[in-house]
């Protein structure tokens, strides 16, 4: 099966569709024109750049080429996950990177080595897109989890200290906020899993079909990816929430609320 190759003219026509957003922004006075222009340029530039990088990596498929790229992707995901929320604390960036890194690499390893049995493990055709998809979802989950945890703890300071005052442990005091945070982190993936194939056709599956893969094979890959994403999102969120908990509660069962500061 062949697929329709895209020329730069095709890309230009597709890019021109951003004008729809621009016209809406002007008509509704959304004042988003500048952001739309920048977002459009970034989309094209970033994707073209990663296209060249991936092309180069695919030509030099060695572990010492693939591994640094995977590390770079993970670091950027970790940094991105830390940038959300009204409050932060010292060490949030480290916690974010650690959570994203541990969860996504563990689950990617299971995907590559146990399920897909890719040999060698760093085969860029598999390792990079799979890690990328897992990272994209895990960073959202970690970010939402940390944001909800810090928000709930700040809002519920009275309740947290009431439970501590009554003799509750630090975990008993934080449990409600932690549960809400883990739930917030896992919900987007759960929602996605509920509607996948009915409301939305995932990008990877669509891409495989467009590239000539049989729908049956594409669906199998997508099922694997969905479960990998779900596992990584859950692990990443729990890891982030536990690390946040460790930063904001002392071993002496004290809530260190002063460590939570408003983001400038």
């Amino acid at each position, binding site marked *: 099966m062949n697929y329709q190759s895209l020329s730069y003219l095709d890309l230009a026509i597709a890019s021109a569709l951003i004008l729809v957003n621009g016209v809406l922004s002007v008509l509704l006075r959304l004042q988003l024109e500048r952001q739309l222009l920048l977002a459009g340029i970034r989309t094209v530039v970033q994707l073209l750049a990663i296209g060249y990088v991936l092309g180069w990596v695919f030509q030099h498929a060695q572990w010492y080429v693939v591994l640094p790229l995977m590390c770079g992707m993970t670091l950027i995901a970790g940094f991105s996950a830390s940038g959300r929320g009204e409050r932060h604390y010292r060490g949030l960036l480290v916690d974010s990177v650690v959570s994203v890194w541990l969860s996504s690499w563990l689950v990617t390893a299971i995907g590559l080595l146990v399920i897909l049995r890719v040999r060698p493990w760093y085969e860029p055709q598999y390792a990079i897109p799979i890690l990328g998809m897992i990272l994209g979802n895990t960073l959202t989950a970690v970010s939402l989890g940390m944001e909800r945890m810090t928000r709930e703890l700040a809002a519920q300071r*009275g309740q947290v200290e*009431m439970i501590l*005052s009554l003799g509750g442990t630090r975990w008993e005091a934080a449990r409600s906020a932690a549960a809400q945070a883990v739930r917030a982190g896992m919900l987007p993936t759960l929602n996605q899993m509920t509607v996948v194939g009915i409301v939305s056709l995932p990008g990877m599956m669509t891409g495989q079909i467009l590239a000539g893969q049989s729908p049956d094979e594409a669906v199998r890959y997508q099922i694997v990816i969905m479960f990998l994403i779900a596992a990584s999102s859950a692990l990443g969120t729990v890891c982030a929430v536990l690390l946040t908990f460790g930063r904001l509660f002392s*071993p002496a*069962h004290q809530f260190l609320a002063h460590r939570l500061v408003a983001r400038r």
Partner: protein
Amino acid sequence: MPALIETRHLSRVDSVGHTTLLAPTDFALHAGERLTIVGPSGSGKSVFLRALALLDPPDSGELRWLAEPVGAQQIPRYRTHVSYLAQRPAMVDGTVADNLKLPFTLKAFQPRRFDADLASRLLDQAGKPASFLDKAVADLSGGEAQIVALVRVLQLAPHVILFDEPTAALDPQSAAAVEHLVLNWAEPERALVWVTHDRDQARRIGNRHMTMDQGVLQP
């Protein structure tokens, strides 16, 4: 008989400005004492009370309970003996009964069970009928919420209660109910520390009086 609570050079410093919140303080609280602390706003009264509850980590010094240092892992158990009541009562969603049952869901109170008769008797002392247990927390006035918070502590029979201006925001009737409950609870083997701005109230509640000024506790 050792002091219930004893502090040695206990101090707190502001983590941002490095200003002294509580100067190194030697203090002892004995059974039967009803200590009141008065002083201007920002003088360190609440800082001291929270330090006694071990809610904030001290910057120096130590606190002893019955002459023994309190280790990090013993702090939840310590707080079952020494309860802290904040000026603004914190409630969980649900009814008054849900809030009174809350402590019994904590590990520190296992295997104790909620005693509805005891809770009703305590509420009765505050002029609240038994049906008050079923009232939704969202419908409570500030004074009623403080009474619930106090009953939630009193039913646990702690040895010491630390009161952080518990009636400062209450109407006179609720304030009187809170004082009545506290004085009924106070027995010779128990003790309390009551922080207030109100010198008349301090005279009504206390049998020992101290002042706090610029982080320094004085007789």
